[in-house]
Structure formats: C-alpha cells, structure tokens
C-alpha cells in the first residue's frame, strides 16, 4: 500500500524543490552573480589556477625541480620572469606547479570534509535523539581546535606528505559542514512535503537523499567555496613551518619560507609565491562571498 502511494505521488511534489528553480533559476542566478564584480574576479582567478594546474607541464618554461637552470638567487629577467631561487631553479615554473598542490589540497580536503560533515549533519539533524547529541558534542569538541593547530597535531602523528596534509586539513573542516547542514535539516524536516513523503511510506534514507539534501545544498556549496581558501591557507602555513609536503616539492608555503633567509639579497624569492598565494585567496574569498550573496536566500537583499 505504502509503495503504491509512493508511485502515485504527483511528480511535482517529488521534484518541485529541485527542478523548479533549476531551469529558469540558474539563468537568473547567473545574472545576479555576473553583476557582482568581486565574484566575477574570483571566478577568473579560480579559472586561472585551474588552467595553471592542468597545463603546468606545458606552461612552465623549465622543469620545476631542475637545479642550475639559471644563476642562483637572480632577480626577474627575460629568461626567468620571476627570478631564480638558491638552487638556481626557475621560480615561475615552481609557482605554476605550486598551483597544482594548492588546488589539489584545497579542493580534495574540502570535498572529503564536506562528504563526512554533511553525512553527519544529515543523520544528526534528521534522526535527532542520542545520535544527534553524540555527533554534535564530538563536533563541538573538534570545533574548539584552531584549524592550523589541529592540522599541526595531525601532521605530527601521520608524518609529512601531500596525502597527510589533505587528511589533516580535512579533519579540521568536518565540524563546520556538520553544523551548517544540521541547522538547515532541522528547519527542512518540518516542511509539509517531508511529512507527506514520510506518510507515503518513503524510507528515511530515501527522504534524506531525495528531499532533504537538495534543499539544504545551497548553504553547503557556499560553505565549501569559503572553506577552499581556508584549506589553501592552512596547507601553506603547514608548508611554511616545514610540516607540509617534503622538499623539493614546489609548494608556495615552503618557497616563501625559503625566501625568508634571503630577504636582504633576493626579496623576490618570498614575494612572488606570496603574490600567487594572496591572489588565490583574495579570489576565492570574493567568489565565496559572491556565492553566499547570490545563492543563500536568507542573505539575499
């Protein structure tokens, strides 16, 4: 009987919250987004980073690991646009390859944190009770740790390397995703269409996947966009402290750290990777702000 009801459920009820805004709404959202100058700048920066990462071997003029391709610690020149470091490696090539690590760590760690955090938030918010209490108290505990300090602790335990950096950063971002998701699930699960689906006998996991998740997605996307820059800052901080991917991997954070020793003779060694890092972070922050202002209906003015 229940199954029958499920089938007879009018399609509008099933898909209304997802499809209705998607067709016309997407274009309307894009028009709003395109008017936000900061967000468009952020999008351009993001595209640049993605292009630099994907085409790094083509774009980089030299091998980022090859030593002595130029004189050591020479400033910007026609042969080496961003100068060379203390091993005579080409800085521009290292910066371009550094975008790869930044992008991979930024995106993969946030995606991992998002999958775990959103699942926990959905389960805690929808089922409530002791599950909610236990999950959210653990999240409160995790949330108390400053991200970089938690990441430092994780690196101490796991050892250095790109994969471990990703795990360390991801763990720090689980709690914010769980909190944002749970808060919205609590509101959505009181909606009449959830009630209807439940009375029609749809199982809880199916309701969560088909009706709850699509309706709490916007704030999660905003959260993810804002966290990518945080992940890149954290990765750079770890690398700066010497706890990131081991040398000679081209990473912005360790390039900046190396340049500190040559700040008097060769300030360009710290300056250029720092500019790349700052551009990436400004861009991603502006993009995140833009997504928040245009996607999150509560904040839309």
């Amino acid at each position, binding site marked *: 009987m229940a199954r029958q009801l499920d089938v007879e459920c009018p399609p509008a009820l099933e898909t209304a919250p997802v499809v209705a805004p998607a067709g016309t709404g997407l274009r309307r959202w894009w028009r709003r987004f395109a008017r936000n100058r900061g967000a468009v700048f952020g999008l351009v920066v993001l595209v640049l980073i993605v292009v630099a990462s994907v085409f790094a071997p083509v774009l980089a003029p030299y091998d980022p690991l090859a030593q002595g391709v130029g004189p050591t610690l020479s400033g910007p020149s026609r042969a080496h646009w961003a100068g060379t470091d203390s091993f005579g490696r080409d800085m521009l090539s290292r910066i371009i390859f550094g975008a790869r690590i930044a992008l991979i760590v930024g995106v993969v760690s946030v995606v991992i944190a998002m999958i775990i955090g959103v699942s926990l938030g959905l389960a805690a918010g929808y089922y409530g009770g002791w599950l909610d209490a236990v999950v959210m*108290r*653990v999240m*409160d*505990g*995790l*949330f*108390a*740790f*400053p*991200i*970089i*300090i*938690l990441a*430092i*602790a*994780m*690196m*101490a*335990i796991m050892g250095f390397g790109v994969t471990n950096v990703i795990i360390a950063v991801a763990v720090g971002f689980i709690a914010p995703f769980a909190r944002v998701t749970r808060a919205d699930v609590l509101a959505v699960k009181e909606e009449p269409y959830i009630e209807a689906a439940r009375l029609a006998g749809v199982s809880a996991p199916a309701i969560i996947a088909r009706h709850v998740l699509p309706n709490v997605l916007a704030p999660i996307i905003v959260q993810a966009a804002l966290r990518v*820059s945080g992940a890149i*800052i954290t990765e*750079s*901080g770890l690398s*700066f*402290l*010497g*706890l990131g991917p081991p040398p000679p991997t081209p990473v912005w*954070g360790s390039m*900046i*750290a190396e*340049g*500190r020793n040559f*700040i*008097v003779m060769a*300030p360009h060694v*710290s*300056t250029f990777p*720092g500019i790349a*890092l*700052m551009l990436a*972070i*400004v861009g991603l*922050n*502006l993009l995140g702000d833009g997504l928040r202002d245009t996607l999150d209906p509560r904040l839309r003015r």
Partner: protein
Amino acid sequence: MLRFILSRFGQTLAVLFMASVIVFALMRLIPGDPVLMMLGDDFTQVAYERMKAQLGLDRPIVVQYVFWLRNVLQGDLGDSLLQHQRVSLLVWEAFQPTLVLVVASLIAGIVIAIPSGIVAAMRKDSAWDYGSMGFAILVYSMPSFWKGIILIWIFSVYFRWFPAMGYVAPWTDLGDSLWKLVLPAFTLGTFFSGLVARIVRSSLLEVLSADYIKAARAKGVRQAALVYRHALSNALIPVVTIIGLQFGALLGGAVLTETVFAIPGMGRLTVNAILNRDYAVVQGTILAGVLLVVVVNLLVDLTYAFLNPKIRMA
C-alpha cells in the same frame, strides 16, 4: 542571567571534555610502541610486561583515559624527552610570548579597524568606503607569515625603522618590548582588522537606519554626534562576538607570525617538538591552545550577555 551563565559553564565543560578525549585519542594514534621506546633494544618478555603494567597500558582504554585526565587536571603533562624538563613548565614559558603577541594584535587590529569601519559607513559608496573595504579584504587575505616577511623587507631591511626579530617580555623592559612587537602585532593585527572593519561598517549601517536614530536625526542631532554618541556603542557589540569567533584563527596566526619574527612562543616549541618526535610537548601545547580558545569563548559570551540587555535582564 544566572541561568544563562550556568548553562554556558556546562557547555564549556562538555566541550573541554570532548576536546580532551580527542587529544587523548590522537596521542594513541601515534605509530610505535611506547613500551619499546622506553626499554630500548635489549629486554626480556618479563621486563616488557612489567614496564607495560607500570605505564598502565595493560588496563582498559577507559581506565587509561581516566588516569591520563587526572594527571592533566593536576597540571602534570609529563616530561620532555629532549629538554629533560616538565612539559607544563615549557608550555607555560612558551605561552607568554604568544599571548602577548595575540593581545597586542587584538589592540592593533581594533585601533585600525574601528576608524576605517566608521569612515566607510559614514561615507557609504564613496572612494573612502571602497578604499578602506578593499584594504580590509587585502590584508585579511594576505597569509600572516608572508605579510610578516614583506613588512620585514620594507620596514627593517629597507627603511631600518623597526627590528626584524626578537622578543622581550613587556614586564622586563616595556619600551624595548613594544619596539620589537610593532611589526609582528601589525602583521597579525591587520588580519583581525580586516574582519572587524567589515563588521563595524555593516553593523553601523544597520544601526544608523534604526528608528531611534531616525528620531534623533529628525530632532536635529548632527551626523557626527549621531554616530559617536548614539550609534557607535550599539554597533560595536558584534565586534565582541567576532573576537570570540576568530580567537582560534588569531592563535593559529600567532603560531605562524612568531615563526617569522623568531619569537620563542608556542609555534617554535611545537614545531621543534614535532621534528624531534617529542610527543609529550606536542600534546601539552595543543591542550593549552584548546583550553585558551574555549575559555576566551566563554568570556566573550558572558561579556556579550552582559552588554546585551535582552539576555542581561532575562
């Protein structure tokens, strides 16, 4: 009010308990057998069992946690393998410079942020507004360790105005201490000011459109008096909240900033401990960091409750 304070204390204890469980679990994840590390290469099975019992590692995990927690609560964080000193002493000594830097940065940040937020709000959509908000986003987005290096390059190497590194406690020599704190506090303070300036601007704009401000304006109160006497005190309440929300980020930033300026604080202690596998010290600094963040958040919430009549009167 009393009920609010009590429930807030309860929450704080719950968070500290969870955080302690997380730190305990993290320390158990460290690869390697601590018994083997204590015994060295040459030992018998009997000696192994005895050592394991001595360390309490033959007990159930919950019992181990309770013993561990008892030691931590008594301030006993173990001994540093490397420096042959109590971890609690090392952490206490390293904590002071970090805390001094955080406080100096908070002050520097607020001193920069409040005027620029006020200017931006009073001349909304003017060049002043765009300029100060652009500056806010820029300094907020510059990673503190890079900003520190650039400031050293400009103000220490090029202009030779301020020292590039070093730390003196304010209670030893206040003048010298402040002198050496200028660049690090500016480095970390501008990160904080970027956030606060945006909050000051938006909350001031919101307050300025409130009815009581409109009434005051209708009665002929001048714009400047309106802002300083009537609007500002209400607009600054969210700034208190942001201190709590961002204190963890500020502490993390301090760990990185002090590395740039060779300040002997928590950052240096922790990183050296990690590189030397001195795990007792790592555990100590992390526990101290979490404790500080949680306590500051409690204080901020209580201050907020006191400032906000809706909670104070309840």
